[in-house]
C-alpha cells in the first residue's frame, strides 16, 4: 500500500496560510424522489490559529458543513482546499488519509471504541497513520496527560465519566497533530461542570495556536470563540470576529 507521503504542512506550507478554503460549496442530498439542497454556496476561509464557532438553528446545514470540512463527505459543487490540498476527486482511502493527517474529530457523544482502553483509543489514529508501536504509546500517554487523564490510561470508556470520555476524545483528536480540530456539539451531552472543563480545554488548545472549528448551540461556548459564523438555510448569513 502506498499513498502520497506529502510533507506535513500544518498550514504553513500553503501559499496563503488558509487552513480551510471553501468557495461556492453546495451539497445536494438525493433521497430518491426529493432533492434536498443542504448547502447552497458556502464561502468560508479559516486561517491557522483561528477558533471558529459555527452556529445556527437545527436543519440549517451546520452538520453537513462540518462533514464536508472533515472530509467525511464530499461537496456536490464548489472547491474545497484543506491545508492547501484539494479534496475533489480523491478516492475513499485517500480521503481517509486526509482525515487522518489533517483533521481531529470531537463528537457530541464521544464515539470512543468501547472495547479499547483510553490509551488504545488515543493510539487508534496513530495506528492508521503508520506510527510505530513504541512511539504510539509514548505519544498517547503524553496526550492523555495533557488532558489531565494520566491516571486513567488503562480505563475503558464505561469506567469513565462523560467529561473524562470527552477529554479522551480530545486527546484522540490531537494524536496525529492535525491541522484542524473539528468539534460537533462537544458539550451537548455533558453537565455544566464537565462542559466548562471541556470548554476550558478547547480554549487552552486555541491558546497553544491550534485551529478549531466548533459547531454548537451553546452560547457560552460560542462566546469563547474568536469568530462566530452563523449558518441559515445553507448559507453563511453572518460572520463576525470578536473584538479582543
Amino acid at each position: 500500500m502506498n499513498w502520497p507521503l506529502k510533507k506535513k504542512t500544518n498550514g504553513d506550507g500553503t501559499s496563503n496560510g488558509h487552513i480551510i478554503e471553501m468557495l461556492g460549496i453546495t451539497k445536494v442530498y438525493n433521497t430518491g424522489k426529493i432533492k434536498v439542497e443542504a448547502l447552497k454556496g458556502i464561502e468560508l476561509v479559516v486561517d491557522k490559529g483561528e477558533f471558529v464557532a459555527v452556529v445556527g438553528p437545527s436543519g440549517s446545514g451546520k452538520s453537513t458543513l462540518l462533514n464536508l470540512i472533515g472530509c467525511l463527505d464530499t461537496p456536490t459543487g464548489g472547491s474545497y482546499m484543506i491545508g492547501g490540498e484539494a479534496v475533489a476527486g480523491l478516492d475513499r482511502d485517500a480521503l481517509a488519509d486526509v482525515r487522518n493527517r489533517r483533521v481531529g474529530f470531537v463528537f457530541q457523544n464521544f464515539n470512543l471504541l468501547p472495547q479499547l482502553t483510553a490509551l488504545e483509543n488515543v493510539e487508534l489514529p496513530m495506528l492508521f497513520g503508520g506510527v510505530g508501536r513504541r512511539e504510539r504509546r509514548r505519544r498517547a500517554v503524553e496526550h492523555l496527560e495533557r488532558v489531565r487523564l494520566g491516571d486513567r490510561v488503562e480505563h475503558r470508556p464505561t469506567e469513565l465519566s462523560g467529561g473524562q470520555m470527552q477529554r479522551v476524545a480530545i486527546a484522540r483528536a490531537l494524536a496525529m497533530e492535525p491541522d484542524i480540530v473539528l468539534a460537533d456539539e462537544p458539550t451537548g451531552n455533558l453537565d455544566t461542570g464537565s462542559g466548562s472543563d471541556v470548554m476550558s480545554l478547547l480554549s487552552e488548545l486555541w491558546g497553544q495556536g491550534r485551529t478549531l472549528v466548533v459547531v454548537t448551540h451553546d452560547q457560552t461556548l460560542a462566546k469563547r470563540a474568536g469568530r462566530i459564523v452563523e449558518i441559515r438555510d445553507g448559507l453563511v448569513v453572518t460572520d463576525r470576529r470578536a473584538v479582543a
Partner: protein
Amino acid sequence: MGRDLAVIATLFLKASSLQRKRAMLTVAAIAWGTVAIVMLLAFGEGLRHQLMKGQRGMGENIAVWWPGETSKVWEGLPEGRPVRPILDDIGYLRGRITAASGVIGELTSWSSSLSWGTTTITGRVTGANWEYGEMRHHFAQAGGRFFNANDEREKRRVIFLGDELAKDTFGEADPVGETMFVDRIPYLVIGVLEHKMQMGTYKGPDANGSVIPITTFSAQFGTQRLNNIVFKARTAEDMPLARQQFNEALAAKYRFDPTDEQVTGLWDTVEFGKVMAKIMIGLQAFLGIIGGLTLLVGGIGVANIMYAVVKEKTREIGVQMAVGAHRGWITGPFVLQGMTYTLLGGAFGLLIAVILIMLVRLVPVEGNQALEFLGKPTLSVEIAVATAALLGFIGIIAGYFPARRAASVDPAETLRYE
C-alpha cells in the same frame, strides 16, 4: 502490504469477543459440517479400498472365458457351431498367448457329494491346473498348501477346500491331513483357503468350493471339455494384446472369425476394474457434495453472525473511518474473524471425525460381509486437503460479504444519528 497486515492484526486482536454463545453455536455448526464431510468421504474411501481389495480377491489382471457358439459364417463354415476346447488346448494356447504370464483350464462339477466321517454335503468341485493357486489367489491357511506340478502330473487325489466349505464339512476339526470322499473316491485334504475378500465370482465364492488337479478330475469324471479358460496378462497394459492373441489362437484352432464376440466374449477384470474405479469416483463425488452442502450451511451460519456483528458495530466502523481507517483495514479483521470461526470449527470437526473413524475401525468386521465393505472408513491425504480447501473457501466467503457491508458504511451518515 506489511503495514496493512499489522493494522488488521492489531484491530482483530482488539476486537471484542462478541456474544460467546452465538460464536460457539457457529463454530459447532462448522464442526458438524466438517464431521459430516470427513466421515462421508472416509466411508467412501474405505468402501473403495475394500471393493478394490475384493476385486483383487479373485486374482489380478485375469480374464475368464466361457465356451460359446459361433454367430458368424467363416471360411465356408456355418454359424451356430459350438466351440468347446479340451484339456490339451491349454498347452497350445500357452505357446501362443505371449502377453500372458499364465493360462489355465477349469473343469467343473457343480454338485458332487463331499463327505467326511458322518457328514455329507453337496458341493462344487473344480479341476484346475496347478498354476490356478497363484493366479486365482488361492492361498492356503498355515499348515496347508495348494497342489503343485507333481500333484497334477501324477494325477494325485489331493483336494484344496474353500474355508466355508471346510467349516461345513469338518466343523471345528483341522481338515488338513484328513481323508475325505468326493463322490465316494477318497482324497487327501492338503490345504484350506485363507479367508479373503472376494467380490467378483463366475461360479460362486471360492470359499464355498473345492479344487483338485485337473488331471485327477479328468480321470475321475471322464471329461476333457473345459468349462472355463482363465489367463493372466503380464501387466494390466498387456491385457488387450493378450486377449487379441487368445482370440487369434482359438480362432485358428477352431476355425471361426476372431472378431466373433459370441465366442470371444469374456470377463476382462482389468476393464471391469476401470469401470469400478469410475463408479467409485462418482460415488466419492456424490458423498463429497452432500458433505460440502452440510458444511455450507455452517458457512451461512458464520456469515449470518458476521452480518450481525457488522450491524452492531456500525458506529464503531464509522468512528474508525473518521479517524482515517482504509477500507482494507475495516474489512480485514472481519474476514479474519470469519476465517477464525470456520477454521476453529473445522479443526474441532476434524478431531471428532478422526476419533469417530478410529472407534468405527475398532468394531470387528471379520465374517460380516456388509461390514467388511462398510466398516473400514479410511482417511487419506486427499480427503484432508479437500476438506481444508473447502473450509478455507467457505471461511473467506463467510467473512467477505459481511466485511463488504462494513466497508460500505458511510461515516458521515453513521456519526450523525444519536
